[in-house]
């Protein structure tokens, strides 16, 4: 048995907003975060921004990771950020993965997306970043 760590595990929501049905990437990231000792709430495909934010609040997560390949990121991500703000949960950081052009990535970072990973990002890098941006527990 693994030794129980003193610090409670990081809770992270992984979801796929929008309509594309390709969730291999999201599942692989979920697994890597699990192997790094995190509790990953996997919400799955076709999640609306409202569903994502409600799940994040109910599950009291420290981090949200969204995977998207449909190209709708410039619509859906700002909507998630706004909803988080309006629910007074802007402290929950958001990171993203998928097919996101550099120019869009710059804009999204400005809007508040903490990290964006494209194809070829290593799992080590994603885990390291997730750990460093997760909301610290008070």
């Amino acid at each position: 048995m693994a030794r129980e760590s003193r610090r409670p595990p990081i809770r992270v929501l992984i979801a796929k907003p929008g309509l594309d049905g390709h969730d291999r990437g999201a599942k692989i990231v979920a697994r890597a975060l699990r192997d790094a000792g995190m509790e990953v709430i996997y919400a799955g495909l076709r999640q609306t921004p409202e569903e994502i934010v409600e799940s994040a609040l109910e599950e009291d997560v420290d981090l949200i990771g969204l995977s998207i390949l449909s190209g709708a990121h410039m619509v859906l991500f700002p909507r998630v950020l706004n909803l988080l703000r309006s629910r007074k949960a802007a402290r929950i950081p958001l990171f993203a993965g998928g097919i996101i052009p550099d120019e869009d990535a710059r804009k999204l970072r400005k809007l508040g997306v903490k990290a964006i990973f494209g194809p070829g990002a290593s799992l080590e890098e994603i885990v390291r970043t997730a750990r460093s941006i997760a909301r610290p527990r008070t």
Partner: protein
Amino acid sequence: MRRRPPVPAAARAILARDRLALARLITKVENRDHGVAPVLQALYPHTGRAAVIGLTGPLGVGKSSLVNSLLQLLRKAGKRVGVIGVDPSSPFSGGSVLGDRIRIDRDPADTGIFFRSMASRGHPGGLAAATREVVRLLDAFGMEVVLLETAGTGQVDVEIGAVASTNVVVLVPHLGDEVQSLKAGLFEIADVFCVNKCDLPGADGAARYLAELVGLTPRSDAWRPRVVQASTVLGTGIDELWAAVEAHEAYLRTSGSFEKGNRTRLEAEVLELYRERILAGAVAQVEGSPELRRLLDEVEARRLDPRAAADSLYERNHARRRPRS
């Protein structure tokens, strides 16, 4: 009696149905935060009203899908429903993938539902150590029904029997031969058997066999467990499943079994918390001590066997403290 302390703000927020406060308090309970004890104490008098329905059974029998079907039925009936989905934590990394939400279809604006995923965090039996307390929080929050889905369970994972008021054991056709069901454990805690995926061949046979088995399994009360068939794919049998659950809940209330069962459950909980407390203290007292290191040297050198080392630790540190009887 102690003087009654003021009601903590977190408890008032739960009673006022503040969803964010509930979510945060659940996290603190899960993390064994010491600050929550007065909050739980303040909320306890407001609990005991919810029907706690456990769904348990092996991996992949469709527990989450059944929870979703029951959730739809209960919301249509206007019931406020809390859902807890437990999934296992890795014994290696401590991490977990909690996937019970995937099956849930719901309007995110519906405040009559509160869904929470819990990782077992090393607790055996298909539940997490904090599950009972989280059930109580949902109860105090005003949920009329709490659906409690265990992690996929094996034959000996029967702790749910001590937490839920009605236990549904979910099975599917062709899980194994009849001898499997003669073995002790899971089958003994069922108040309702649900043969799920009854669109698959073999469901009738499985249900028939279970119905025969029910007559042969001794119980401490006069309830005769019901057997229902359901298919979440076809949407059949869900009404029957809920009717069977309600029949058992009604039986509990009219027969006095509820009070009796409740007392047994509370006793088990108090004793478990007591055990947890004593164990933690007793282990912390010797962990990392020079005495333990010395004994380990002996064990490693094969001069002392592990049991003798443990006995020696116990004799020196705990045995003498016991009051004489």
